[in-house]
């Protein structure tokens, strides 16, 4: 057997092909095709390792048809670590066949931090050229179809913020008598698309007497790159972030983005090779916390004001299965006076976004999202709270397309309101 497949063996052999993954995989449920199930993909990789199937572009396409939502990891009776297996396969396939040009350019762009930042700021100025306003201020619609950029013409995407989060706030946000020193890793979406949610997080942290540092040199967490198999870019970004976060002597590293948090806390462990960097990572990974985790650990800081709203909560995959955070946001929301909390059916099921998945497979992604919206709407809630900007974007898109009045907010925005911080 080819050496590069040896690492897969102890996972591949565990799959008993029982098909339980069929009952949990959202992509399978939308597509009804065995080539989307975990056991199907495991068998494909087994065939690769047996020399029966080369690393073809067709295989790459099929390995791409996965949200990395980890539902199969959780549901697998034999405990096959399918997420790690599939990422590793995506890497070998990207090494072999390359990535689509648009992806490759975009990921390379991420490594030029300043240029990337400039590009998105310019984008905020010129976005009107290619996008038009969606009705009722719901967001933007593409003026022309842009399949190479993964944009369906009916997809409503949020506008880029004219002033990104990190230009709105200083790098160090002091409080009168700081009890903890916290690094706030914003990630890209809170910075460029949802800065208000980022501001809410900073305000909450300050209310907890934290000195909040928003490291100016932080880069994209790299998730879009390494999940597509581009480990070179993913690893570069991971190393940059690890060094910057290890450098500041922080008590906690707080995130407000499920995917960034899961990357910092767990995924980096699978892509970092340099033992020295890995040591650094082990040090920082223990400090990484989602904002709701931080608040619950510290205890609710002040008397909560009334927020009159019926709220439901959606578990982002990378928060519930990536970081193991699911009780905290619910506890906090339920603690707010006036909040009528309504749990939706299948709250922990993927919303269908899956990062770049929704660009490559928009229609499947939309079908899965529609199940989520149906379940959310059945609760009668006016607000859907969640802790992931990618979920927020995808759910907002779906709600816009069905002209729903339901609003999507980051959990932290609701807590900030209850803290009286707006």
């Amino acid at each position, binding site marked *: 057997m080819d050496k590069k497949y040896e690492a897969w063996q102890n996972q591949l*052999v565990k799959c008993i092909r029982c098909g339980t993954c069929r009952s949990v995989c959202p992509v399978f449920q939308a597509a009804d095709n065995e080539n989307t199930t975990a056991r199907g993909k495991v068998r494909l990789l087994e065939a690769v390792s047996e020399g029966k*199937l080369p690393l073809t572009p*067709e295989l790459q396409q099929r390995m791409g048809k996965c949200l990395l939502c980890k539902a199969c990891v959780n549901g697998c009776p034999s405990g096959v670590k399918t997420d790690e297996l599939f990422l590793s396969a995506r890497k070998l396939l990207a090494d072999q066949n390359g990535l689509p040009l648009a992806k490759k350019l975009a990921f390379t762009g991420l490594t030029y931090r300043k240029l990337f930042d400039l590009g998105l700021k310019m984008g905020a100025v010129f976005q009107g050229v290619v996008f038009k306003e969606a009705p009722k201020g719901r967001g933007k619609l593409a003026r022309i179809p842009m399949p190479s950029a993964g944009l369906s013409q009916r997809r409503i995407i949020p506008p880029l913020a004219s002033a990104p989060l990190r230009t709105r706030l200083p790098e160090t946000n002091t409080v009168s008598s700081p009890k903890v020193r916290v690094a706030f890793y914003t990630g890209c979406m809170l910075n460029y698309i949802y800065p208000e949610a980022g501001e809410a997080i900073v305000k909450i942290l300050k209310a907890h007497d934290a000195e909040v540092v928003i490291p100016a040199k932080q880069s994209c967490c790299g998730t879009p790159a390494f999940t597509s198999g581009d480990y070179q870019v993913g690893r570069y970004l991971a190393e940059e972030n690890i060094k910057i976060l290890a450098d500041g002597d922080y008590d906690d590293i707080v995130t407000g983005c499920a995917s960034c948090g899961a990357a910092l806390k767990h995924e980096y462990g699978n892509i970092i090779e340099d033992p020295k960097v890995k040591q650094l990572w082990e040090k920082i990974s223990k400090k990484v916390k989602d904002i709701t985790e931080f608040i619950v650990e510290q205890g609710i800081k002040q008397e909560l004001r009334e927020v009159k709203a019926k709220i439901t909560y959606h578990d982002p995959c990378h928060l519930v299965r990536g970081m193991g955070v699911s009780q905290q946001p619910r506890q906090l929301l339920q603690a707010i006076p006036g909040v009528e909390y309504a749990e939706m059916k299948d709250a922990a099921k993927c919303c269908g976004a899956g990062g770049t998945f929704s660009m490559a497979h928009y229609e499947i992604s939309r079908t899965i999202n529609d199940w989520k919206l149906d379940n959310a709407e059945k609760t009668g809630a006016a607000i859907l709270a969640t802790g992931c900007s990618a979920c927020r974007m995808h759910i907002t898109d779906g709600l816009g397309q069905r002209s729903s009045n339901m609003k999507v907010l980051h959990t932290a925005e609701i807590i900030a309101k209850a803290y009286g911080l707006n």
Partner: protein
Amino acid sequence: MQQQIIAELKGLVGAQYVMDQLEDRICYSFDATFRDFLPDVVVKPGNVEEIVAIVKLAGKYQVPLTARGAATGLSGGSVPVKGGISLVLTRLDKIVDIDTENRVAIVETGVITETFVNAVNQAGLFYPPDPASAKTSTIGGNIAECAGGPKGVKYGITRDYVLGMEVVLPDGSVVELGNKVDSEMTGPDWGMLLVGSEGTLGIVTKVYLKLVDKPSAKQTLLAIFDSLDDAARTVSEMIASGIIPTTLEIMDNLTIRAVEDYLKVGLPVNAEAILLIEVDGSAAAIAKQADRVMQVCKRCGATEIQAASTPADMDKLWRARRAISPACGKINPTKISEDATVPRSQIPVMVRRLREIAQKYNLKMVIFGHAGDGNLHPNILSNKHDHEEMERVEQAVEELFKAALELGGTLSGEHGIGYMKAPFLKWETGETGFAVGKQLKQVVDPQELLNPGKLFTA
């Protein structure tokens, strides 16, 4: 396969429902057993008319055709051992009718078992067959393999609920076998021929199923034994004394320890065996039944009997039962799960024979299963990459089939024959029985189009 055939298939059902790339064929080359057989093409018809057209096309070009539901089978029934067309039936997934007045349901073949069970439950009735794969398996697959489950002790298995069906025969004609009337008796029970036929005689497209009353209450008991023999004897005596619990599951020491290691629910790890017993019915009836169950357990040497008093306790015990598969997977990756079944009076002998076989071939074997209907699940825990060990596994499996048959039992209680037990089928049917089966297949499917390499064409 000729491109002409693939082009015609695409014309019949639409190109998006036909797959002939290697990457996709690989995904349809297996079920829950461990060998792979590539189909030449995968086709997913959307209705009976399309199935008829595909069957006729297969006949015209002499291409093997193997029906497939969710492919969760444990004997290899849906695996296309001779290649050809893999006919995926999951698009036929409508529950056509749940007729509560007449207690009959009409479902299409690709409906997921659990989806159906839940729908029946919501309608206020009960469909008892509960294979472990119910979350994924299809009703059509349950019929093709005659699936069972823990509730089989009291409620029987899939065949006990099949009233009739719509079938596409190998020549493309569509027939209705049986009908919706529970007590229909117009000539032979043709439908019964199709139950367990593994898609070798026809493609089942629609099914009429019998529904029963929902039990109003249930009680779960856990009996602990310090001898596996005593536990086995309890099973035989309980049935002999006329007590029929809903479920009567046995777990040996190795199983108990594996599950406890995995779940940590407080199972008695020093026990040689436990019996997990459920009784259901009206509240008054189950109290009486539970009492009698406990008496038999005590008489046969149970050291302790626990009654689950809360739904949470009950759930804990059943969680332990469901965790056996994953828990064993942690010990050794390849699980060869058998379902050889013996008359319930022979359970103690069979358990002894199984242990001897495991010892003789130096294999790790866990014994658990639906002891209450004689259906033990000896599972050999192995590693398919260890060829020397796998040879010993094969010998042990042969020997355990022989043991079951010698005791008046059968090769399969609920998993079917598939490719895995096909070589041993003659042991059970005898030469004459096998020849009759062969002739029957010849008459119905003279071209041997449907699922060749299984049952009487292996």
